[in-house]
């Protein structure tokens, strides 16, 4: 009785806004995965082929990560290049 009375008159914010926010973030992520099956695999492959045209590198040292946020997503490409580069890339980097 006291509990119900308290609930009736309290203006406490419920848990629904939390549910809503969790769902929005989760579904933005899941929908992205659904619409672009293996996007990351393709990106990784193409990036690898472009770089290896100029530099010989270890395919395992190319890491492509995607982080999907609510409004902005980021693509993180981490390529480990071997030391002692010569040619256009080294020139451009210096």
């Amino acid at each position: 009785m006291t509990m119900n009375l308290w609930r009736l008159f309290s203006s406490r914010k419920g848990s629904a806004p939390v549910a809503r926010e969790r769902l929005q973030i989760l579904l933005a992520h899941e929908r992205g995965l659904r619409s672009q099956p293996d996007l990351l695999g393709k990106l990784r492959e193409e990036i690898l082929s472009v770089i290896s045209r100029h530099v010989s590198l270890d395919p395992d040292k190319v890491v492509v990560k995607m982080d999907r946020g609510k409004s902005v997503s980021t693509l993180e490409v981490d390529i480990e290049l071997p030391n002692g580069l010569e040619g256009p890339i080294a020139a451009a980097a210096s």
Partner: protein
Amino acid sequence: MAKVLVVTSGKGGVGKTTSTAALGAALAQAGGKVVVVDFDVGLRNLDLIMGAERRVVFDLINVTQGVAKLQQALIRDKRLENLWLLPASQTRDKDALTDDGVRRVIADLRTKFDWVICDSPAGIERGAMLAMRYADEAVIVTNPEVSSVRDSDRIIGMLDSKTVKAEKGEQVKKHVLITRYDSSRAARGEMLSIDDILEILATPLLGIIPESQDVLRASNVGAPVTLSNAASAPARAYTDAARRLMGESIAMSVPTERVSFMNRLLGRRAA
């Protein structure tokens, strides 16, 4: 022209079978010739909710395999003469239902009925995929609860990609039906609101079925809730939803049960 409607959800226990029976009966009451088809092979229940469990002789699988004719498997409702049931099989063989078999049965039903309502099993396995495969329209049954909304979103994605309509570049017309809705809890911010759900799913609303004891009572006696107690809040909500399916425009409301102030204070519902 016949319309094939799938009642689906992804998640189990949200009210697909209850909604199939209630919408089917309401559409039949409005004059349409209706068949409700149970796709839940191995776990059939639509027969029980419709009160026809003792009259099942042949089933959907028998028809697809040519063991029985469609006319032999169809069960006519005892209350409404233009309402029929095609029950599911209780076989444990998951592969008994085939795409080709379903295609033929649905094509046949289209020639005989105005409404073919397919009651999908839960999940995203074969039965659920075949239940939606030939649909023109879909009712996505959703509870105001995170796991149900998530699964509905997944099912919407499949309706847009795995159906025959989608493969032809057309669209299955989708409607969200919110069930087990408690407006007082939603008002207190304890339950996802209608607006929250519609915004997240970005799909038009077909109706709001309030949480009610009448639904359990109807299933106890084996009658669609729209027939067992037509004046009850869920029955009125289902009847409105059925009329919207027929193309009528009816203002959206949440039918409520009368609960006295003292009962509300004590957290009780009217019996």
